[in-house]
């Protein structure tokens, strides 16, 4: 079996929504260069709907593919719908990831949440903090995935 599914390769080689948004309404950055993965998500939000999304990623093929897939999954969706996206859904949409790469999908989920949280903070919108777990370190991702 190849290392990655065709879908992963497709999203890695032809990433969707790559780049940044100058006047983004929310920006989230998760991961850590020490561990070799950083994802940055930019959201443009109008009336609680994500009208545009871009990402930048430093990381391996599955990290880039996971971010690309995550942007597709939340574009045009409401904030609530975006917050409901789980790393498991990202993995399924990519037709699977190797076990030691699952943390990339966790980062994708967390980058969406971090960007939404930033949007809430900037606009002083009250929110339930327990829905936004802090990204601690790479090991914590690994542990969550076991």
């Amino acid at each position, binding site marked *: 079996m190849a290392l990655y599914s065709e879908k992963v390769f497709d999203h890695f080689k032809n*990433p969707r929504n790559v780049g940044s948004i100058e006047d983004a309404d929310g920006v989230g950055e998760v991961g850590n260069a020490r561990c070799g993965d950083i994802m940055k998500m930019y959201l443009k939000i109008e009336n609680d709907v994500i009208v545009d999304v871009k990402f930048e*990623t430093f*990381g*391996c093929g599955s990290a880039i593919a996971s971010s690309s897939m995550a942007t597709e999954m939340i574009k045009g969706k409401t904030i609530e719908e975006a917050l409901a996206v789980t790393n498991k859904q990202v993995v399924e949409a990519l037709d699977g990831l190797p076990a030691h790469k699952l943390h990339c999908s966790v980062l994708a989920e967390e980058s969406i949440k971090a960007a939404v949280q930033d949007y809430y903070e900037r606009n002083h919108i009250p929110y339930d903090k327990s829905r936004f777990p802090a990204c601690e370190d790479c090991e914590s991702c*690994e542990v969550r995935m076991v």
Partner: protein
Amino acid sequence: MFVYADNAATTRMSRVAVEAMLPYLDTYYGNASSLYAFGQKSQEALQRARETVAACLGAEPREIIFTSGGSESDNQAIRSAAAQGARKGKRHIISTAFEHHAVLHTLRKLKKEGYDITLLDVHENGIVTPEQVAEAIREDTCLVTIMFANNEIGTIQPIREIGRVCRERGVVFHTDAVQAVGHLPIDVKADNIDMISLSAHKFHGPKGVGALYVRRGAPLENLIEGGGQERGKRAGTENVGGIAAMAAAMKEACDHMEENGKAVSALRDRLIDGLLEIPHAALNGDRTRRLPGNVNLCFEGIEGESLLLLLDDAGICASSGSACTSGSLDPSHVLLAIGRPHEVAHGSLRLSLCEENTPEEVDHMLAEIPRVVAYLRNMSPVWKDLESGKKAFML
């Protein structure tokens, strides 16, 4: 264009090696331990191979043990010296922080068994000094094991001088020469070496075959119990075809070492110069004291696995010391040992050339690698932070 630039991982079997192997697969397939003449054909092939391998190292045929490869040789050499040391009450072993895992993991096990292990620091240029070894040797040191040339960054160690220090202090000296044999001149006597590990597939021989040189009088114990092959030091029916092919490949490599070395290091130097034109890139390991075919750089702001996948798309086979390619959280222990920060070590690229690579292939790599690095940097938030001055460049 297809460019195979991962010759430190493995090489293509040479025509000479394939031809040397074939007769022992289906014509002279007898067991070398059998008494009849048909079996003795295999025994003779083993003897010729042993003479060839010994001659390439300046050793005696009886000092060569055939094994399954570099890892087995490393395990057997280290275990043998450790066991002998323990019998004399000596349980201290000296090595370096950037050895191959076949050495490091064996030492880690020995540590659990009560041995005291000193791993010498490797300087920024990827070279340990004989002075470091001399300072580390103690009354209870039973073994010094230091690689001839590093598998990731290609740096060549001052083996002869380290060997001299060990000889003077009466300590067994083993060197993992898996990357060096066939590429660098080795003379076990002049170089003061007691044990050498080598592997056939690193010099155009087959995979799954290697050898261990053990100086007469140096300790040798078997890892694998069974029949009396290899003077009772390595049980198991000999891989006659593989061994014959290894000897043929080794002779060919040693006969053409000088010309190959010149041609390959010229390609290497052009590749290094060209890649260093990429901004915020740095060569890993000493510029001159390195294997003829080794190129290893770090590119700031990108990660190695994505680099390899895109290079694969461009027809280039290479490797990296990033965590993602090792399947662990940490990048290469070699790059960390020479002082590269984690962030930078994740963005490493190793290209390893051989005499089959061409100037056109170097041109192709010099066109594709800068393009792919720029592409990945353009989508990297780390690179953006460096470029905007939010974070300081390390390279």
